[in-house]
């Protein structure tokens, strides 16, 4: 081990103290102004807004420039992501996470079982910014065909329609970004808000279960498995994801317990009777 001479220590210690002092002194100059971020805005008050809907006649413009109505999404559940396309922060993360989650979700297919829509609440978004954002996501061919990226056609709808479903956003001059919830909103086939999931807390199965949940019990007879799945899991508001519906499983277990008891009693009776006969 090399020996460290006292001269080295004598030089190094003042240098270290100077560096620390300088860093501390310099910090206020490089520190950004305190953010005016209001954490509560990043949550949607589900209890107040479940069952609410945006106006069905709200005109929207998709990434190809086609105008369509929000009503056109009705008929099957819709996953809605409210974002803005010049966002350099969470919007891309939330959409890319949704892409990964949709890839994990094998049971249900976008376009067939549900719609996926990303909708901008930024009045500055154009066809170009929409297209660039979409391109950046690197969608699979299947999802590219069934994932709609859209903007509001009327500027007035930006706030009125989003407020109707409890989605709040505002511009933070300090952060130079829109502050908004990073949430996936699930709408029923009739356009009613049925579930809100947050990107950080969920897996692919939660997306599938939320889509089934958004069906609000309306399943065709051929969809028995989907119906059973929707019964077997229930949404846990506390944890923000779906968990097994234990009472149902316990009930099913109980259903067999009576019959098992009966069979045991038959066995006991037969054994006792045989012993009695042998004894006699």
């Amino acid at each position, binding site marked *: 081990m090399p020996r460290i001479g006292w001269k080295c220590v004598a030089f190094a210690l003042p240098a270290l103290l100077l560096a620390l002092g300088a860093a501390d002194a310099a910090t206020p100059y490089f520190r950004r102004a305190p953010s005016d971020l209001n954490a509560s805005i990043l949550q949607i008050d589900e209890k107040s807004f479940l069952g609410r809907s945006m106006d069905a006649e709200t005109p929207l413009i998709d990434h190809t420039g086609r105008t369509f109505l929000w009503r056109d999404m009705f008929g099957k559940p819709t996953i809605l992501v409210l974002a803005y396309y010049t966002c350099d922060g969470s919007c891309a993360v939330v959409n890319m996470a949704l892409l990964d989650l949709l890839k994990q979700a094998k049971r249900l297919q976008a376009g067939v079982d549900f719609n996926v829509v990303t909708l901008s609440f930024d009045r500055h978004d154009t066809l170009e910014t929409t297209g660039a954002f979409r391109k950046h996501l690197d969608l699979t061919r299947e999802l590219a065909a069934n994932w709609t990226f859209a903007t509001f056609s009327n500027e007035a709808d930006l706030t009125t329609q989003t407020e109707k479903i409890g989605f709040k956003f505002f511009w933070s001059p300090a952060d130079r970004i829109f502050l908004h919830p990073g949430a996936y909103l699930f709408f029923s086939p009739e356009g009613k808000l049925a579930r809100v999931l947050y990107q950080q807390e969920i897996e692919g199965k939660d997306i599938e279960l939320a889509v089934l949940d958004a069906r*609000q*019990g*309306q*399943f*065709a*007879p051929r969809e028995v498995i989907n*119906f059973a799945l929707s019964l077997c899991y*229930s*949404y*846990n*508001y*506390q*944890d923000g994801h*779906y*968990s097994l*519906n*234990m*009472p*149902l499983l*316990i*009930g099913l*277990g*109980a*259903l067999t*317990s*009576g*019959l098992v*008891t*009966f069979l045991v*009693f*038959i066995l006991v*009776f*037969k054994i006792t*009777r045989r012993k*009695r006969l042998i004894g006699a």
Partner: protein
Amino acid sequence: MSAIAEIETATVKSGFRLSEWVFTTDHKRIGILYLIGSMAAFLVAGLMALGIRIEQTAIGESGLINYFVLDFSRSISTGTAYNVALYFHGAAMILAFLIPGLTGFAANYLVPLMLGARDVAFPRINALSLWLFWAAIVVALLTFLVPDKPDVLWTGYPPYSITTPGNTALYVFTVHLIGFASILGAVNFLVTIIYMRAPGMGWNQMNMFVWTTFGAFMIQIVFVPVLAAAVTLLLFDKYLGTGFFDAARGGDPLLYQNLFWFYSHPAVYVIFLPAMGLLYEIVATQAKNPIFNYKAAVYGGIIGILVITGEVWVHHLYIAGMPDWLRIGMMVTTLLISVPVGLMVISLWGTLYKGAITYNIAMRYVVVCMFLILVGGLTGIPLAITSLNLHLSETSFVHAHFHFIMGLMATYSLFAAIYFWFPKMTGRSADDGIAKLAFWCNVLGTQLTFWPLFIIGVEGMPRRYWDYAMYPQFQPYHKVATIGALITAVGIVLMMAGWIHAAIRGRKTSTNPWKSRSLEWTNTESPPGPGNFPKPVQVGKDWTPYDYHR
């Protein structure tokens, strides 16, 4: 010493010894103890019904209902007292009176006798069932002594049952105890029916009551554990802080309703089937006819009900969220179950055809039951149809409907059975003037009570409202219903006094006063001694318990 040998040595000695009754394993004594327990529950539950009716006689708060639930200081509100009374009335009538009365008393007393068996397969477990039942009665009666009286109705729906300051535990423990008693009773009787029939007795030679009991116990054994599981989870939610039925924590309150009705609709048939079985026995004997279309009634009726009964519960939840196909599917099954029920009813009516009918007091109750089945069955049809159910659900129409088909019909069939087998149990007849007077009071009183509820139900009178200030137009109907309840109360008191009087000083009867062909009348004395039959019973190939035409 084997249980059967114990029964034989435990002979009925002269005089009354309490210990012989408390520790009895004799199915007949157990049956009578079930009858006493269930009639006690009936009296208290009936008193609650009277309180409910009195409270609803006029618009506004009378507060009289508080006295019925022993809240003399009026420490709880009238609404809560009403809920407590409604809880006890519903829970006790169904769980402590009708089910134990029909499957506890009637099955215990009659099934081994009808089968030609010396006792049930597991006499000690039979005694345990009885003790559990009595424990349930005691726990249920604590309702009136605790300060936090349970007020969860007989359904115990969350979230109310979890958030109420009322004592939900008493409800849960009562269900547990009755549930255990039912399961033990069910396994016992199923084994008895399968393995302990008299030599020579085939399945198609069994009494209809035995068949219906078999059906009822099959339902009990499959469905009771589900209810027991549901109320256990309810207990955990309320007292251990779990969230099985708390939507805020991933639970599902609607699932409780599904689990509850998954048992509780089949429970209607646990009551209906043995009640019908009793009616069959009385009709066949009093008309001196064999059962009309026996095999259709058994295999189409009883077995048909067993097959379909587990697929109809959703009609209690039509107004809850569910897929349309499920709603429509359950509407179809609900309507479909009227086919096996119809087969049984036709068979019952057909048994009267060209019969030499003797209208004793039991038979009079049977005739009333036939009318009640008709009204109850017909009013069930609109409730089964989803579009009509949406309007009638939670109105007093439903209340009147199930009181006709389940409450009154099953209760009267039990009354008929008590009168019919009274000579068998006591050696004396209870068919006297008091019985006739009580009969008319009961029949007229209950009709006066429930017909007005049909009418105001159609017009929108909600169920389970202690006051109805918003519906003043319904007050005259409520008044008539209360008058009916008071007349019924007089009838019940007269009837029970008549039974006690008849058991002590009634006219002595012959061993087989109705000239029945069933084994309990033909092969043993009245009342039967220990071991039931003086000689082992054996029946021939052509024997039937309804052999009246030879």
